[in-house]
């Protein structure tokens, strides 16, 4: 299995354009973005950036959807093993950063 995520960029995509701004005015970190993205798949649950995927009730069918969304939104194809071994939004954010840096 490859350990480095594969990156495919779409035309015109700019990393800065992905940044969102929190109500406080502080830029939202990638880990917080990933937490929010996970939250869409764990209905009715607030997901923190250190929450454990499996403790939240995560399973492979949810994992398939999250990896797909990460690929669409950030242009980074995460390795399945790395994703499940990472287990928290913070560490998944690190994988995405690594994937971007590798290009």
């Amino acid at each position, binding site marked *: 299995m490859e350990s480095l995520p594969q990156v495919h960029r779409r035309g015109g995509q700019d990393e800065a354009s992905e940044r969102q701004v929190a109500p406080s005015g502080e830029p939202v970190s990638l880990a917080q973005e990933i937490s929010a993205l996970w939250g869409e798949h764990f209905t009715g649950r607030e997901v923190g950036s250190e929450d454990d995927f*499996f403790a939240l009730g995560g*399973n*492979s*069918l949810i*994992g398939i959807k999250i990896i797909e969304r990460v690929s669409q939104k950030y242009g980074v194809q995460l390795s*399945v*093993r790395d994703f*499940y*071994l990472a*287990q928290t939004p913070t560490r998944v954010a690190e994988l995405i950063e690594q994937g971007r840096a590798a290009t």
Partner: protein
Amino acid sequence: MRLTPGPGRDVDLDTVDLFDLDLYTSGDPHPVWDVMRAKAPLHRQVLADGREFWSVTRYEDVCRVLGDHREFTSERGTVVTHLGEDDVAAGKLLTSTDPPRHTEVRRPVGSKLTARAVRSWEDSIRRSIVRFLEPALDGDTFDLAERALLLPAIVTGPLLGIPEKDWEELVELTAMVTAPSDPHFQQGSEAATLAISHHELVTYVTDWVKRRRASGGGDDSLLDHLMSVRPGGAPLTDEEIALDGYSILLGANVTTPHTVAGTVQALIERPEQFEKAQADPSLIPNLVEEGLRWSSAACNFMRYAVDDVSIGGGTIPARGAVVAWIGSANRDASQFPDPHTFDITRANAKRQVAFGFGPHFCIGAPLARLTLRVFFEELLQRFASIDLAGEPQHLRSYFIAGMTHLPIVAQKRHTP
């Protein structure tokens, strides 16, 4: 787990832990089940995390739990590693679906796996098995349990429509599903191991289907067949194809190797049975049935009680999880006299429930029976004797009873 039980011992049914992985890796579950059948045919256990389950261990009760979907549903999951979590694939995965939908899907899918349908594969299966056995006759130690993990792939790969280059990875992934705590297969935690393997296997079938759609045309394989069946007048959804494809891969890969290893081990321990089979090859089909009974590779399956239900002298409450211990049912003396004796001439060996019972009876049973019969025909014809060449090692799993290592040395048979 040990297939030949050690001496009987005192078992405290109030404290026995049926999910203790050490019991299966290095312990001896048969004496425990013997006591359960005799004294607590319905047994309740609460795990440290609060989850609870009931166990049935008698032949008759195991058949009832597996066979009656009105009392015991499969739609909340059937595999004990997921105890307490409702199955995310319920109603979509054939094994997690009750009749009538189950019947509707199973019939067309199974039409390619009947005894008659698989007969045409016998010659190619025999060639694969001969190739598989050749290196065992080099005179060196041959780790049968480890090698046999690839046997179903070698035998059924072409039938399923899966290229040889992918088999090794698929075999590893299916092993991860069945023994997520075995150090041979674990990645990170048990939960991560299960998620990685489910994810990769479902994605594998999904990608296979995408490629097939893009290239057009069929190859008459089983996966191809899944794409073309129309149960109830409509094709399976892509999700159903992916899940059933996954399930078929799993069923093909994870049980046959352990039946092979368990049966060969029984023959090594009992040279007189080996000689008997060699002297009379017409006994081989019954040897296969006794080997299935003896090894019971699928150790158990789970159901959930629909309503309060009386069984085994007690009551399982509505929504309670019940584990049907197949490995125990196959050693029930009321059905099989001297159950812990391995006897290739056993009159009713064919009544074993290693393939399950009722609507979810193993869909691949005819193919497994054919593969095992050919395996033992070729083995007995080529091997003069087999000796153990090291300690067998058992799989760390309470779901699949199997071996990870069975080192053997075989002598070539010189036939006139």
